[in-house]
């Protein structure tokens, strides 16, 4: 699966022009990436869009600069807020850009960066424990062997005390991307970011 550890390959943000134009453009795009570091997830303000894997590319489109983002959940109400935040952050710096929403390949929690996961953990949200590919594979088992496949549950460590002795309170939590768990060691409830 496509899982950039920091940012998508430079090739996506560079046009095949002459060497000089190319380096100027890649510098300009690099500056855009830097500017967008300040744009955070509206519902989880400790991680930014790059760390979430939502920010996919900065490129020159036919109408000018384009910032490519990918939606998380189909109905995530934060998406339009993120679009506005990207446009506002760039316009404050005097950069005009449009936001392009790209569905494929579908966003996955596998695209979250390691630093993003650490920030989630420090914020009290347990990051996804296994890759979404593995989750999808176990879901395939569901189709063929209902009893076994559906019984699978993730072991999620408590972000407060680190104990593995936790239990799921609710499949769904405060936002589309989270489930609600409780630690049976320190008795604290916590959010779990579901593998997607």
């Amino acid at each position, binding site marked *: 699966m496509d899982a950039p550890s920091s940012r998508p390959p430079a090739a996506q943000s560079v046009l095949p022009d002459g060497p000089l134009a190319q380096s100027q453009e890649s510098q300009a795009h690099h500056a855009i990436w830097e500017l967008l570091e300040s744009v955070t997830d509206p519902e989880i303000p400790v991680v930014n869009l790059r760390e979430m894997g939502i920010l996919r590319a900065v490129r020159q489109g036919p109408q000018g600069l384009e910032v490519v983002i990918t939606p998380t*959940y189909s109905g*995530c109400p934060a998406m339009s807020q993120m679009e506005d935040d990207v446009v506002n952050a760039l316009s404050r710096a005097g950069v005009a850009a449009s936001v392009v929403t790209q569905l494929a390949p579908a966003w996955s929690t596998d695209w979250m960066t390691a630093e993003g996961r650490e920030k989630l953990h420090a914020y009290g949200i347990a990051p996804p424990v296994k890759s979404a590919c593995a989750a999808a594979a176990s879901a395939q088992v569901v189709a063929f062997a209902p009893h076994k496949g559906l019984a699978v549950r993730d072991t999620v460590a408590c972000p407060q005390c680190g104990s593995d002795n936790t239990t799921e309170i609710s499949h*769904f939590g405060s936002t589309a991307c989270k489930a609600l768990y409780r630690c049976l060691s320190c008795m604290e409830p916590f959010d779990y970011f579901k593998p997607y």
Partner: protein
Amino acid sequence: MASYQDYLLHLADNALILGQRNAEWCGHGPILEEDLALANNSLDLIGQARLLYQHVANVRRDGKSSEDLLAFFRDVPDFRNYTLLELPHRTAILPTASGDRDYAVTMARNFLYSALMVQVWGALAASTDAQLAAIASKSLKEVQYHLRHAHDWVLRMGDGTPESQRRMQAAVDYLMPFTQEFWTPSAMETAAVATGAGVDVAAFKAEWDAMVSDTLQSATLKPPANSGFVTSGKHGVHSEHLGFVLAEMQSLARAHPEAVW
């Protein structure tokens, strides 16, 4: 002549109507966690519907269609959802006047529909229509989770107290005949399968049957009859219930056409 847009509208309307139905639990859930669960489930379904309506509007290229027009300004005969998804959250005959919503019906329906859609979205991820394939890949992830949630409740209520079992049995007995509509092909589906953009739902019947019967058995429920009148919501011929769903869902948009917020 059946159009490919009808096929896309069928998928979109399924998601929108079930999303609207499940959202009726918002603020009325049996417990807080389930209130949240159904709101999240609806959010996913309505999100899927939006992507599909946007796709239809792009396919039409008539400059007039939009996701809002498709959702809020079409009438009952234009909707292509399965009749199953427009039914109220209750079995045909109410046990008491206060029982206007029964969570067993909600969970049984979500289970029966999600068990189908994990297969449909999984197969549509390889559709020759690249945009539909992209929407399917996202929707698959969401519906797998909906299936797990609903499956757990079918087990919990079926293999629960005498009262919860009675209600879940009544729910599956009531809903199962409506699933016959899944397997009866329509012209729009046949045409979409022929082009490679759609998938043949009937091909999933054996796996669907196996999952449903295994789950009902685990839940100590008796297999319900799957026979009788075959509904035809996907042909635009609906039950009396869809009109009420649309009246509630569309009234605001129709009272304030072209309002933005």
